[in-house]
């Protein structure tokens, strides 16, 4: 077998195995599997943008919240169907992402991080205000007859779409352009790449997938509140999982998401008051000891074994 087919074949086998998980997992492991699928989608989509460009986006929580909030409002107040919102909410979120991108991605990375840092919190304040003053503060419900298995398969389909998109990106002009931008933006400009536009396009896809995941996961909570869906913590978890796995490889975030979700689950159960401290320590450990993530470590040992 030719080397370039190893990745896709292994990926396809793993995907089929992942799709069979609901037939063997019980309730507890199924809920963990849903969480893993959700973070895999969010972290991989994050890494497609932030990996090559080195722009740290903390907007995941905002996009996720837009998805969850829109589907809840539409189903509770306007009797629109879940499937319609599955289509509309990601587009709305992608437009928001494009607007943010045009405002911030022309400038240096610091401005972008700062802007996305408070974004989820800001949208949450805005939404709460609109809801309290104009819509009446009622609870929003997302009532469907989906089980965890259905949600899991939908998320898995999103993961597949993101992986295919990432694979396609790695072999076309846009992906190549992003790599050059990440290495040296000046060079990229001089060889005629529209740097701002390339970054905005990729950031828009992050917005799209973030809201898509937000919509799909909403039936799991069934009762939706702005305070819950616009969670700044989610943005940080996505960043940390993607970096732990390694943002420079398509499969990198996946190898970060799985161990981190398991550890995170154990910590939230055993030490519910120490989660923030743990998050801080995890950030520090990654920066100082595994700057290239697990993917970097795996590659290092792999090449050493072959040498």
């Amino acid at each position, binding site marked *: 077998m030719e080397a370039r087919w190893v990745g896709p074949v292994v990926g396809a086998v793993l995907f089929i195995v992942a799709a069979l998980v609901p037939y063997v997992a019980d309730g507890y492991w199924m809920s963990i599997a849903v969480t893993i699928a959700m973070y895999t989608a969010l972290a991989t989509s994050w890494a497609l943008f932030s990996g090559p460009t*080195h722009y740290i986006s903390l907007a995941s929580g905002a996009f996720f919240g837009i998805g969850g909030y829109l589907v809840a409002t539409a189903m509770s107040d306007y009797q629109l169907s879940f499937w319609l919102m599955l289509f509309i909410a990601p587009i709305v979120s992608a437009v928001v992402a494009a607007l943010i991108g045009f405002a911030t991605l022309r*400038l240096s990375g610091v401005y972008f991080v700062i802007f996305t840092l408070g974004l989820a919190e*800001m949208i949450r304040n805005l939404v709460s205000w609109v809801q309290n003053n104009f819509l009446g503060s009622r609870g929003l419900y997302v009532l469907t007859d989906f089980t965890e298995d259905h949600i899991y398969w939908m998320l898995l389909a999103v993961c597949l779409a993101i992986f295919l998109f990432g694979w396609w990106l790695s072999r076309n002009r846009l992906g190549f352009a992003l790599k050059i931008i990440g290495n040296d933006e000046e060079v990229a400009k001089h060889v005629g790449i529209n740097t701002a536009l390339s970054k905005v396009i990729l950031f828009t896809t992050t917005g799209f997938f973030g809201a898509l995941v937000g919509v799909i996961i909403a039936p799991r909570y069934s009762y939706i509140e702005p305070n819950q869906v616009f969670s700044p913590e989610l943005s940080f978890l996505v960043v940390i999982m993607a970096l732990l796995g390694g943002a420079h490889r398509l499969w990198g975030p996946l190898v970060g998401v799985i161990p981190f979700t398991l550890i995170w689950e154990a910590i939230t159960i055993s030490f519910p*008051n120490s989660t923030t*401290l743990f998050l801080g320590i995890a950030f520090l450990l990654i*920066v100082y000891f595994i*700057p290239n993530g697990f993917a970097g470590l795996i590659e290092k040992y792999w090449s050493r074994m072959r040498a």
Partner: protein
Amino acid sequence: MDIFVSGLLLAGTYALIAMGLNLQYGVARIMNLANGEMIVLGALAAFWSFTAYQISPLVTLLVAVPLSFFGNWLIYKILLRPLVRRAKSQGQLEVDSILATFGISFALVGIMVSIHGAYFTYSFLANPIEILGTTVAQNRLVAFLIAVVIGACLFLWLRHTRSGTAVRAVAVNAESARLVGINVDRVSALTFALGGAIATAGGVLISTFITLDASIGVIFTMKALIIVIMGGVGDIRGAIIAALILGIVETAVATLVDPGLTLVAAYFIFLLVLLFRPQGLFGRRSV
């Protein structure tokens, strides 16, 4: 007029905090996202010593600021200098320092939550006083005056002393500063520590009139960053004007529309700055 006076008083502390962040980013080249936690630490110290030992926040200020200076100096020496050394470019350092200071910020929030998980509520100098026909609490006025004094000292030190000039030289160009015999590493460490100490001072002052809790730091980080960017990195005059604008707009939105929208207002200003004057209010467009 009410809005103007309260906004002005709030802006004094904002300007002070932004000055600290400006020093850290402009001189030590560290984008410090744990700045807000230094503010909250100051507030926690003031709250704790006031409720436990009835110590005036003004006394706490004298103890907390040197402690914070030392603590931040250690943070720079132990955690941040390795990043400065290993960074191949300014961009690399920015990404690393952002992630590392996120880590520091979360770790500090975690520790503070375990010390005191509830609001830092206490009452100090909460008596009304009338200025310019507006009634305000004395604590706001005192905080403003102290912030102005500290800010003025800082400004004079930077402008008119030999050590202040060395700091400004590093801000302009670290390489050239090294050539004229300035110990860039030492100046960076001390400036970073100074910036953190200033944030702590701001926190002690702010806690006398705003009730904080352990996890609110990130909001202050956001506001300080918005002020620094609006004023222009390294521009103290710009930061003061920017703090005034933010203080007054926030107070106006809080009184006229809804107190829950202050962050939205700050974001709106931030967006305008990014769209029209990303180089800062008085900055020149770089070519």
